[in-house]
């Protein structure tokens, strides 16, 4: 029975065995070499459910070294339950230092946001991705969408955006807003609000995207040119709630709307809790 009683200390550094990490790193290298291209990888069954960030966790595990300082956010916040859970997982399996401060982190795993503070060279931002295929809801078959990427056949996407404008007067996509990478691959930036899209382009940090259930990895190397799809007469606009943060007063951050009483009163607060904290302390 002893051989079975695996406790956490018996797991390899950052949980995954070295062969698996090497397999993931190879996929990451390929992804960096072909920005925006979805690289298939042999995603493992992780001890947390698919949909909870298994892709991001595997990418983080493959990148982590004992000297790294890890930050984990979900919805921009360090204290959301799943961010807490993932941070704890790496503290337990890799014993790495963790931080809530964006500028102190060497690796940041995120779900649905890019931090407000500018990232710097040497930092890695790891995105958790549910559906990596930007064309998926236009064409459900992977065999078809792979062909469409191969042939750079993105007409369907432009037709969809055009139909939005024809029907609604604007492009009715508010998050997971599709982008084109270095003029080649159309890419899903994961369900970040389109407010965050401009931060994808020319960013000095390395951005890695992991989709565990869908077994795909893709990347934006530092300083990659990323363009949000739009039309000349309907240019892309990074929108947010038309308010300032009710706590720190910032007018340039992405805001969460919080309902504060049963009369429907509401307030707006920064979704990036670390950014808001720094501004309050200043």
């Amino acid at each position, binding site marked *: 029975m002893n051989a079975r009683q695996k406790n956490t200390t018996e797991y390899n550094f950052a949980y995954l065995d070295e062969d698996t990490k090497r397999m993931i790193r190879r996929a990451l290298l390929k992804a960096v070499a072909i920005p925006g291209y979805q690289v298939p990888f*042999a995603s493992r069954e992780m001890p947390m459910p698919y949909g909870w960030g298994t892709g991001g966790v595997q990418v983080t595990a493959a990148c982590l070294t004992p000297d790294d300082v890890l930050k984990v956010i979900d919805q921009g916040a360090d*204290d959301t339950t799943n961010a807490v859970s993932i941070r704890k997982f790496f503290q337990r399996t890799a014993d790495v230092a963790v931080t809530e401060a964006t500028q102190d982190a060497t690796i940041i795993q995120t779900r649905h946001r890019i931090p407000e503070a500018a990232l710097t060279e040497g930092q890695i931002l790891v995105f958790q991705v549910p559906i990596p295929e930007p064309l998926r809801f236009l064409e459900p078959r992977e*065999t078809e969408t792979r062909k469409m990427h191969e042939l750079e056949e993105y007409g369907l996407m432009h037709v969809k955006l055009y139909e939005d404008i024809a029907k609604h007067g604007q492009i009715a996509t508010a998050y997971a807003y599709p982008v084109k990478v270095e003029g080649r691959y159309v890419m899903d930036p994961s*369900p*970040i609000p389109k407010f965050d899209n401009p931060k994808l382009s020319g960013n000095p940090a390395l951005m890695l995207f992991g989709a565990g259930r869908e077994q795909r990895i893709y990347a934006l190397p530092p300083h990659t040119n990323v363009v949000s799809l739009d039309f000349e007469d309907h240019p892309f606009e990074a929108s947010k709630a038309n308010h300032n943060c009710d*706590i720190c007063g910032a007018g340039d951050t992405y805001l*969460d709307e*919080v309902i504060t009483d049963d009369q429907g009163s509401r307030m707006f607060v920064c979704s990036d809790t670390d950014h808001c904290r720094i501004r309050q302390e200043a």
Partner: protein
Amino acid sequence: MYVAVKGGERAIENAHAYLGEQRRGDPGVAELGTDQIEQQLSLAVNRVMAEGSLYDPALAALAIKQSRGDLIEAIFLIRAYRTTLPRLGASIPVDTARMECIRRVSATFKDVPGGQILGPTFDYTHRLLDFALMAEGEAPVAPRKPAEPAHVPHVTGFLGDLIQPEDSSDTEPRDLTREPLELPADRALRLQSLTRGDEGFILGLAYSTQRGYARNHAFVGELRIGTVAVEMDIPELGFSVEIGEVELTECETVNQFKGSKTEPPQFTRGYGLTFGQTERKAISMALVDRALRWRELGEDYVGAPAQDEEFVLSHADNIQATGFLEHIKLPHYVDFQSELELVRRMREAAE
């Protein structure tokens, strides 16, 4: 003044403690032992082993206890454990013709060499609640007769050249758990996916073929349950050694095939093989396997779900499915907020 919600870590710890308490239930009631689960809920154990892709009844029983009887959660525990195990090697293919059968029925022939063996089946039970089971008591002893080691050949073997021979190949099949699924998949890979696929999903698909969505009437040529020896080649020894045995359920269906330009009319086969005593799953698997073979047999694609390889293989895994389905309960404040803004803006524009 509003303070952002904090305390995620404490909330998680408390939730886990509460879960543990609920798992135990009333402490006045004796705790369930994993050996009891293994012995007395053995069909649940079998399902967890089959869909967890790990043959270990004791661990499956533990997983069932830990998951409070939620079998998909138990399968998940087994899968997550399985991934961490080293791969020491591959066994040589098990020989199901040498199975020691506890059950073996054929729907195609009244009698066959090796006989029809009903075994421990629910088939002819009347589904009347047995209130005697609520009281404690000794289980009835089944009558038995001395085992006579019988050769139990595969029923489909008696069809000779009337049934399509299967390709035999020594090439190593791709491993679904070590490589990303890439389509189109060959039959070996499809069968791997089906055998670990969700019983309910495979059952539903199989049922849909019976009701006319890619109908191809299946006779159960043979259904057998029993144990087979697992052997491994040991390079240092130069011969294979039996390292244990596993219980398997195997189903071969016999389906009509009208023939084509190159092939005479003949029967074809759907195949199901699952860990443990899991015959609903094995029969379902055989039907879906056969439905997925439309292309190689030159049959019409009628657009039925069970014919659609990409649809079936992408959605058969209940761990993937339940994870993605349930993740929508995680926080989505940020993307919802962006939708909220968009809807408000679109309404403003419309007014």
